[in-house]
């Protein structure tokens, strides 16, 4: 690596140079991310920076878990995460197989444009589509399926979270499709050809060749979908109810509470949310690595 040191100057040891190169990025991640998670944890345990009050306690967590609103929101968050990830993954893989078979070019472009849509705009679109006076309701009324907007099922700002799930599925299925398409290489086709020669039918080829080959990439993509579904604020805020709301919405509600004593509870929810995302990801990765090993 001497070629990269300034000629004539003292040679900087590799190890020092590497950490110097990394230092700006580590500074950003260290201050904002590690600092942020650490502060959320400390403040949830009763430490208030700049106020000089430090009485360590688990009161915030006790209050949070005792609150039925929080438990309802935990259930809602898990439901939204699991269903959105499931729908996006299944539809995304099906979409990828369809695109590979029928229309690579134009459909890929369409998938990419959907990827680029900000979730805030996605939430607006889904709202205008699924709300009681939305486009679907109008279509249903015009063909005589319903008499009025009241007859249309409540799909946005509903207690179950259908509107939120619809938005995530619409945005993330193309993401999974693009990820899956990237791993559907010519080598996969060769293997499928070999399986066919050996007498494997279409379902068997799909189950024993195609899916195991794309599973690692799709699994990684699904983890990102799950973590995003747990993390997003604007989608559940716009398409969900304010009670029960998903965890990010609850965290911000408590953070904005005029009573500063509620602040530690906001931090407790934030900490739980961070832990939940990390646990989901770890559990999922373990599960998928087992599944793929067995399938192969």
């Amino acid at each position, binding site marked *: 690596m001497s*070629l*990269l040191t*300034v000629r004539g100057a003292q040679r900087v040891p590799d*190890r020092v140079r*590497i950490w110097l190169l*990394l230092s*700006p*990025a*580590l500074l*950003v*991640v*260290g201050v*904002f*991310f590690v*600092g*942020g998670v650490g*502060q*959320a944890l400390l*403040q949830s345990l009763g430490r208030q920076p700049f106020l000089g009050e430090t009485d360590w306690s688990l009161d915030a967590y006790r209050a949070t878990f005792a609150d039925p609103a929080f438990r309802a929101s935990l259930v809602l968050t898990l439901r939204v995460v699991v269903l959105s990830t499931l729908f996006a993954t299944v539809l995304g893989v099906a979409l990828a197989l*369809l695109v590979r078979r*029928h229309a690579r070019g134009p*459909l890929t*472009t*369409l998938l*990419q*444009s*959907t*990827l*680029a849509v*900000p*979730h*805030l*705009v*996605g939430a*607006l*679109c889904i709202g*205008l*589509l699924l709300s009681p006076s939305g*486009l679907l309701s*109008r279509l249903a*009324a015009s063909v005589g399926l319903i008499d009025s907007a009241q007859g249309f099922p409540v799909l946005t700002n509903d207690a179950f979270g259908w509107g939120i799930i619809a938005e995530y599925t619409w945005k*993330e299925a193309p993401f999974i499709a*693009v990820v899956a*398409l*990237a791993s559907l290489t010519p080598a996969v086709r060769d293997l499928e050809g070999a399986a066919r020669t050996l007498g494997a039918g279409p379902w068997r080829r799909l189950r024993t060749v195609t899916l195991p080959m794309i599973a690692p990439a799709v699994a990684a*993509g699904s983890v*990102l979908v799950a973590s*995003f579904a*747990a*993390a997003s*604020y*604007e989608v559940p805020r*716009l398409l969900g109810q304010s009670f029960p709301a998903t965890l*990010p919405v609850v*965290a911000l509600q408590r953070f904005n509470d005029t009573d500063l004593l509620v602040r530690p509870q906001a931090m407790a929810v*934030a900490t739980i*949310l*961070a832990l939940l*995302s990390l646990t989901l*990801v770890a559990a999922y990765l373990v599960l998928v690595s087992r599944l793929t090993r067995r399938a192969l």
Partner: protein
Amino acid sequence: MRGRVLVGAVVVALLLPVVPLLAWAVAGSWRYPDVVPGRLTRRGLDLVLEGEVVAATLTSLAIAASVATLACAIGLSAGRAIGLHRFRGRRLVQFLLLAPVIVPGLAVTLGIQVFFVRYGLSDTALGVVLVQLMPTVPYAATLLGAAYANLDLDYERQARSLGAGATRTFLTVTLPLLRPALVTTALLTFLISWSEYILTLLIGGGQVTTLPLLLFSAIGSSDRTAAAALGLLVVLPPVLIVLAVAGRLRGREQAWTGLARG
């Protein structure tokens, strides 16, 4: 035949949510249960040309350009270390660069918001740019790290042996070789910043008004034409950018555009 029907159904499913957005942007009045607007209006267009919206557009552009530039610079530096070197602690670094992608930005930012207030960075564009480095730097470092890993170092060695200094080698040899990855990274980080809502709200405190903030309050109001017009303004640049670069992206890079979340 069955294939064509399926493809048609997929196209409809992907485009259907966008239809009411386009229709509302030009709808003067649209009574229920009409399927098409009764009267068209150019109010949406007038609205996006208003001073407030133009100012927010400029703020969004300036913040996104700053975030993209800084993230690329930081990512180039870190990417060199990650892509070219095997060192002790590399796994930890990679984990630290993955974690901000996984852990919700909202949960992280709630904890440090009080420090932004304390050091005078809240309610400022600078504070917003700094906090947006958190979701962008990990992507930039990872993408550029992959680009460095594919870099043929012989070009640098030849330039050096021909007498070029470190700076000149970087500017005339390394940067041009990394250009495709750098363009992708710049666009991606620009998109993340352009779409960001909650971090901007938390640190900007509503004082730094970007387009997503205007859009959010428009969605909250009952003016659907305003919301749809602003929605189109927010969605057009990302879609145009992705369509423009889609042809030159390879498979894996295409997937990265899906990470431009927000």
